[in-house]
């Protein structure tokens, strides 16, 4: 019986595979029994592909953009907004040599936010048993 989490696979069957190179995803049909030249063939029929991925947070529009509005919301969960502000404050102090000693304080606050963010991401909004991803906090 097969299921979605089966880890066994047959080395003799054709299967679709993907890989990533040069900012593009490659998709091909892999035939382990074919000659090396013909082992991978591009898909000859149209198929719908779904990508699941981690993404960057959407940027705020700058004021010269036509879609700029001060009412824009940050895409991150609310509890992390303050850390984003802390990072901007840190950068501001780094541009001022006379106040640069203030920067590490806000940097530490941001680093605390990163740590909490990783924990939040690992938790996956579930309680109890959960997937643990190796990470350096």
């Amino acid at each position, binding site marked *: 019986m097969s299921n979605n989490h089966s880890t066994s696979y047959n080395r003799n069957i054709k299967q679709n595979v*993907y890989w990533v190179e040069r900012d593009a995803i*490659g998709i091909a049909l892999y035939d382990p029994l074919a000659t090396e030249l013909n082992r991978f063939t*591009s898909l000859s029929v149209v198929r*719908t592909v*779904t990508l699941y991925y981690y993404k960057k*947070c959407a940027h705020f529009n700058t004021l010269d953009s036509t879609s700029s509005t001060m009412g824009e919301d940050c895409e991150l969960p609310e509890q992390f907004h303050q850390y984003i502000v802390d990072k901007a404050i840190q950068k501001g102090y780094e541009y001022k040599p006379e106040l640069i000693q203030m920067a590490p304080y806000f940097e530490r606050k941001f680093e605390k936010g990163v740590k909490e963010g990783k924990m939040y991401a690992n938790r996956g909004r579930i309680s109890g048993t959960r997937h643990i991803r190796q990470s350096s906090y």
Partner: protein
Amino acid sequence: MKLQQMIDQVKKHHPDLGSNEIIVMLNDALDEFSARTLLLEEATQFDTVANQRYYGLKESILEIKSVDIQDEDGNDESIKRLIGRPKYRDLDNVQ
């Protein structure tokens, strides 16, 4: 927190900075935060083109978690990631 509130908070410390400068700083912070925490996940779909092997990825994608492909019956099947790349490239139809 709205953008205006974020800008106001930064301006309390840096009244000399313009709003645009602050927005650029906030955007840099968003990039760093999302890249280091991998907090935001998303899924997107596209249709393949016959005999085309490579498809460009959106700039916002940090890491691909998994890929599904629809079979003849319309079921989405997870496909395996290849370690490395094929020895022979097929660059037909690359955009």
